[in-house]
């Protein structure tokens, strides 16, 4: 009996399929976590280095300003020349602007590094989550290729256990365990052939027994045996409800 492949039919044996899918996902999550820790550490160190660089740049900027102020005061004290003072002032102002620009550049680089770190974390987290979902789906689909045939085989084996040996079902394309299923089919063919041969022999013997006037109990026994052998091969008549007792 062919069965449609629906969402539900992908989880034919939830315990087996989810267990192996979970193993697969856990292994990948562990590997990803290990790699993620290494990457996070490297990113953290880069961020720390950038932070240190900014601190150093701020310190240098402050020292530069202090030096400029001291130098300015020194010039004003030593010389009354306003031109020299003006030149000195312009030069220090230019130096301060340059220092401020350098500090802003370093801070901008630090912000870039922090942003890149956040993006890296998002990519790693999002990519990891997507990979886990993909692995889960793949795990269910892959295990379904094995569980599907096993599910069908279990059902057919239960049918054979009732004595029904005619099997029309086949595996779906792409299913695993084809060799096992083929061996099972060969077994049912052999058993059917034996059953048919026995039934023919019994029918012929029964016919001869009837023709030669064999004892009634012998004939009844043979008919009972035939009824057991033919069970399921011929349509059964429905039971008739007996009339109510008076």
């Amino acid at each position, binding site marked *: *009996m062919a069965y449609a492949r629906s969402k539900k039919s992908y989880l034919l044996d939830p315990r087996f399929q989810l267990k192996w899918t979970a193993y697969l996902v856990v292994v990948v999550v562990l590997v990803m976590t290990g790699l993620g820790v290494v990457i996070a550490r490297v990113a953290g160190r880069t961020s720390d280095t950038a932070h240190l660089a900014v601190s150093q740049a701020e310190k240098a900027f402050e020292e530069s300003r202090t030096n400029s102020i001291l130098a300015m005061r020194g010039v004003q004290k030593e010389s009354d020349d306003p031109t020299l003072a003006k030149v000195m002032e312009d030069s220090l102002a230019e130096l301060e602007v340059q220092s401020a620009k350098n500090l802003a550049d370093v801070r901008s680089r630090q912000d870039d590094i922090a942003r890149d770190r956040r993006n890296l974390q998002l990519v790693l987290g999002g990519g990891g989550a997507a990979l886990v979902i993909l692995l889960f789906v793949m795990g269910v689909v892959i295990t379904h290729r094995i569980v599907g045939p096993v599910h069908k085989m279990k059902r057919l084996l239960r049918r054979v256990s009732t004595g*029904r040996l005619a099997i029309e079902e086949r595996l779906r394309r792409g299913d695993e365990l084809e060799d096992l299923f083929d061996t099972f089919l060969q077994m049912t063919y052999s058993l059917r052939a034996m059953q048919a041969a026995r039934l023919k022999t019994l029918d012929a013997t029964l016919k001869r027994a009837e023709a030669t006037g064999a004892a009634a109990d012998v004939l009844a026994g043979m008919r009972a045996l035939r009824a057991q052998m033919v069970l399921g091969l011929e349509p059964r008549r429905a*039971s008739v409800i007996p009339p109510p007792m008076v």
Partner: protein
Amino acid sequence: MRIIITNAVDELCAAFERQGYNPTPIIDIGVLIASADGKVDEREREMLLDVFQTLLGTSLTAEVVDNLVTASLEVIEAAGAESRARLVGAILRDIGAVEAGVRVALGLAYASHGLTGDERAVVDRIATAGGLAAKRVAELVAEVGKHADADPVSVRQSISPGRTPDA
């Protein structure tokens, strides 16, 4: 009771035929119930004779019934009663006739000495393997039990159509 049993047997056989199974698990149901207390007594043997005759559609001698019962008992002994009950339940689930199977089992249980604890355990095992809820099993027990108490017609007559009342 006879309507319940006869209809359930017919429903079971039709479901077996529809799904391409042989109805032999009915033999297992009968023997599992009859042997629930550890032995198959004379009254249960007569009940099984009727079941097998109904199933095979032919008259059977006591010897043939003995052979069938012995064969089934050997299988149950080898496989284990619980395991066999689980298989029967799974087959009933395959053919979508768990309730009919449970009705037959309950009918047969009530037919001998009423529903004993051992027989109820077998019924529960079959029902559980078939995926039938405990609540529904309790409803079926009440339903079949009600007919067993109210209808004096024996199960033997009900599962063996055409049988005379004094047979």
